[in-house]
């Protein structure tokens, strides 16, 4: 009975579901309510900034939702993969700059250096993910407390290793020349890298959806999440599949790290901690295990942060926690999570 109090008026299949609609009204409201107080030009500029932040957050949150939602692993080392990706990209960009491929680069060279940087982050994140899953995570399946403790420890170790190799101080990361300036679209100033970030975010979203929904690998992953035993007795090596999912999640976090670093033009060893909190909020809003939910959640968080930072700067950080709380109250499984 307790669960049926309040807004619970779900009428079954095809019926009116107040909780679902309430959550969607909150989601859509975030996009348009700011127009009540902000002029259109500023609104568009803030919207593009919000979409950029959303796309970047999605890169990190998508990995977290795969690991957290699909594998049921509470991975607090996710932020460390993010930092490793950023530092790997930092070193590669410094090297490419000595070849003239970054600060003095043509459009083609800039694109090439960005693609190489993203691939490097993906490989570094993926390899670290495989190591962590094989050495540590595999021993903790089914035990959330162990997962929290051991991944927190792993995150600390990984961050300290960063300090050993790259030092504890903030560093400026180079931005490929072609992405430094801005477009002026009818008085709306759009930084070129923001455009790149949105394109990368959407492309990664489409790629993950394609793999999960349309390929045998994706079907196997979804099946393994629902019932490992059935998948095993069909002849699939579920341990290897889950190592792969963990590595993919870590690789995405690393790619998110280097994209965020280039966006901020700055890296530091503690940058993963802040992003992990945002990513957790995104995953909870979107619904654990739902990549589409994470995409939507990331956009909501990015937009709300930018609108509120403009309107009431002191509330900027808190607004996302408020959105998360409201969504959880209305729809505890998140926007697109399974009940």
């Amino acid at each position, binding site marked *: 009975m307790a669960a049926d109090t309040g807004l619970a008026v779900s009428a079954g299949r095809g019926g009116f579901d107040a909780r679902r609609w309430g959550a969607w009204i909150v989601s859509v409201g975030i996009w348009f309510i700011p127009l009540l107080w902000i002029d259109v030009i500023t609104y568009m500029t803030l919207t593009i900034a919000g979409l950029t932040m959303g796309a970047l957050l999605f890169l990190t949150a998508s990995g977290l939702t795969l690991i957290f939602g699909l594998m049921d692993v509470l991975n607090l080392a996710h932020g460390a993969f993010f930092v490793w990706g950023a530092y790997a990209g930092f070193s590669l960009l410094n090297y490419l700059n000595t070849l003239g491929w970054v600060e003095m680069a043509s459009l083609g060279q800039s694109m090439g250096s960005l693609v190489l940087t993203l691939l490097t982050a993906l490989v570094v994140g993926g390899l670290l993910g495989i190591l962590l899953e094989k050495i540590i995570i595999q021993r903790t399946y089914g035990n959330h407390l162990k997962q929290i403790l051991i991944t927190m420890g792993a995150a600390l170790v990984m961050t300290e290793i960063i300090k050993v190799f790259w030092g504890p101080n903030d560093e400026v990361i180079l931005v490929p020349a072609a992405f430094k300036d801005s477009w002026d679209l009818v008085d709306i100033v759009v930084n070129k890298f923001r455009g790149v970030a949105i394109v990368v975010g959407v492309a990664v979203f489409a790629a993950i959806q394609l793999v999960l929904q349309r390929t*045998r690998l994706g079907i196997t992953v*979804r*099946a393994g999440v*629902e019932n490992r*035993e059935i*998948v095993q*007795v069909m*002849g699939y090596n579920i341990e290897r599949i889950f190592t792969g999912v963990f590595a993919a999640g870590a690789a995405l976090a690393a790619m998110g790290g280097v994209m965020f670093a280039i966006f901020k033009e700055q890296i530091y060893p503690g940058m993963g901690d802040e992003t992990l909190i945002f990513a957790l909020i995104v995953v909870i809003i979107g619904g654990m295990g739902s990549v589409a939910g994470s995409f939507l959640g990331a956009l909501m968080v990015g937009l709300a942060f930018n609108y509120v930072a403009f309107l009431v700067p002191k509330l900027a950080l808190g607004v996302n926690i408020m959105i998360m709380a409201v969504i959880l109250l209305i729809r505890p499984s998140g926007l697109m999570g*399974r009940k």
Partner: protein
Amino acid sequence: MSEPTLSLKDVHTYIGQHHILQGVSLDVNAGRATVLVGRNGAGKSTTLRTIMGLYPVRSGSITLDGEAIQNRKPFHIARLGIGFVPEDHAVLTTLTVEENLRLAMFKESEDGWRRMESIFRLFPDLKRFLHSKAGVLSGGQKQMLAISLALVLDHRIVLIDEPSKGLAPVVVEHLGKSLNQIKDTTTVVLVEQNFYLASQVGQDYFILDDGRVAHHGLMEDLVNDHALKRKYLGIG
């Protein structure tokens, strides 16, 4: 007498601290339908799950056509040619019927699709609901899908755990007919509480009691042995 396809010798299995299988020995001959019967908790399902590698063997041996398979991983045992239908209509409810079957096919092949066609002849409902999520199927349809998942590949043996559990009598009747068709082409090991169904399908039987084989023989003999049935199965 030819060598058995599947052979268990003095198998002991623990679940946690509980000593469930206490020296099970049994032989399954190729081309036969072997039924494991016994009271609840006798160790029937545990025997199947131990064969599949889902529970570790503490001691004893399991061989498939002479090759030791005890304590190998479940996916490895499946690839060696043992199909398994777990109890409780185990299907992947978030996938469509077609996705379930494609996944079970492991690697898509012409032979796999041919077998799929024969499955649709056996269970026409599955073709009708091919693009529906397996979660919307009825209990009987789910069980048909669960059995089909083990039939998509040309397994040497198929282990089926309590297929009639929770199904209406009319569905069990249909299931019995289907299992009889399956046993014509595949070696089957069936765990079944419903003695009527077990006797319809089974050719050989093993009675398990307290984690040991208490009796075994031909099913036609068990059907007529009312004292044995009363003693171990509680039916006369």
